[in-house]
């Protein structure tokens, strides 16, 4: 079986692993980097639990090959904060009780950061539209939307010009 060496920067640390070309980025992260915060919920590009940032943009790591990301810069849920020092959006999730079972949370947080980065957290309707690719089966969307809006308004999130 052929393997290729895939080298990435993950959460500011260099990673290099020999994997099969068919290895998905989410499996590279979970099985080779041992970063199991990114979840595989549906494996069909629908639920968004595997959302990570690739070169600064939110993608579904179940629908990216690790080799496609070769040389790239990946940020996962483990890279944005720690238990001692939560990311401001994680703090907002806690304040707004934006999680119940927690399975979708890593993807929601990574997508929420991306929404705010793109200046798309202007109002509730826009945030809901931007969360189309993330499913919460506890249906706790209200708290999630509130947390993202709160983070967008209260944090020092840079007010960037709107780009997708």
């Amino acid at each position, binding site marked *: 079986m052929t393997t290729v060496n895939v080298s990435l920067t993950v959460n500011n640390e260099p990673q290099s692993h020999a994997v099969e070309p068919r290895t998905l980025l989410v499996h590279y992260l979970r099985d080779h980097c041992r970063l199991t915060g990114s979840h595989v919920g549906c494996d069909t590009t629908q639920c968004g639990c595997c959302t990570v940032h*690739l070169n600064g943009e939110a993608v579904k790591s179940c629908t990216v090959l690790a080799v496609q990301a070769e040389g790239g810069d990946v940020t996962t849920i483990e890279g944005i904060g720690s238990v001692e020092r939560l990311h401001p959006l994680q703090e907002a999730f806690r304040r707004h009780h934006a999680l119940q079972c927690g399975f979708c949370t890593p993807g929601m947080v990574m997508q929420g950061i991306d929404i705010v980065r793109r200046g798309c957290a202007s109002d509730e309707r826009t945030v809901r539209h931007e969360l189309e*690719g993330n499913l919460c089966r506890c249906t706790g969307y209200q708290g999630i939307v509130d947390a993202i809006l709160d983070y967008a308004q209260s944090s020092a999130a840079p007010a960037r010009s709107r780009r*997708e």
Partner: protein
Amino acid sequence: MSNAMVDFDYARPKSVREAVALLTNEPEAMALAGGQSLIPTLKQRLARPTLLVDVQDIDEMRGIAVSDTHVVVGAMTRHAEVAVDAHIAEALPALAHMAHGIAHPQVRHMGTMGGSVAHNDPGADYPAAVLGLGATIHTDRRRIAADAFFTGLFATALEPGELVLRIEYPRHHRSGYCKIAHPASGLVNTGAWVTRLDDGVRVVINGAAPCVFRHQELERLLAARFDPASLDGFRQPSEGLNADMHASAEYRAQLVTVTVKRALAMALSH
């Protein structure tokens, strides 16, 4: 590790010439653009390539150029780039609107126009714009008119090893697009693109049938009068339309009228 995909080799060429050579020399090779259609297809084992030729490093396949008469979009241009490009928003607002609504944000960061057009999934958005605007597909060896490009379910006029480099749209301000999409996957259940030309109207339906198609009856009706009232007596038959777990052929037939009316309203508003 769970992985349903059959094993394949991978190459990332730097030039069109190198990519075409790789695609030509390996009979079961496939081009990989953003992978947002292809990777799900591989997971379902609906395709079993022996080699994926990733074209992300080919500069010639990138970029957006807008002139007084045309909008040219490189095949590797991501949906997110099209959605926020100020020149496209001005030249072809319906195309920008379409790009902004493809699937969901994470997919728009990876998925590309060339990949969508070459894959020709009935649930894809871009084929409707390409056909509706009468665009021209530029490949490594020729130019193909949209009317001759989409040939069937996941089928196009592309020859083995032929690579889409860019897509050239004529500027027609009066266009509109509306789709009813599956809420989770974002795939088009039924959609309609309407463009008013100087000498007629193009009406294109996607999602509803195995392949995107021009709706000649609706084109005639709207050419006579470019107004929603022209559809008053129209009823879409369900014969030949897709039926699956998401929607019956009868429902899709109903949505043809709904989406054409909404696309028309958008065209009239521009």
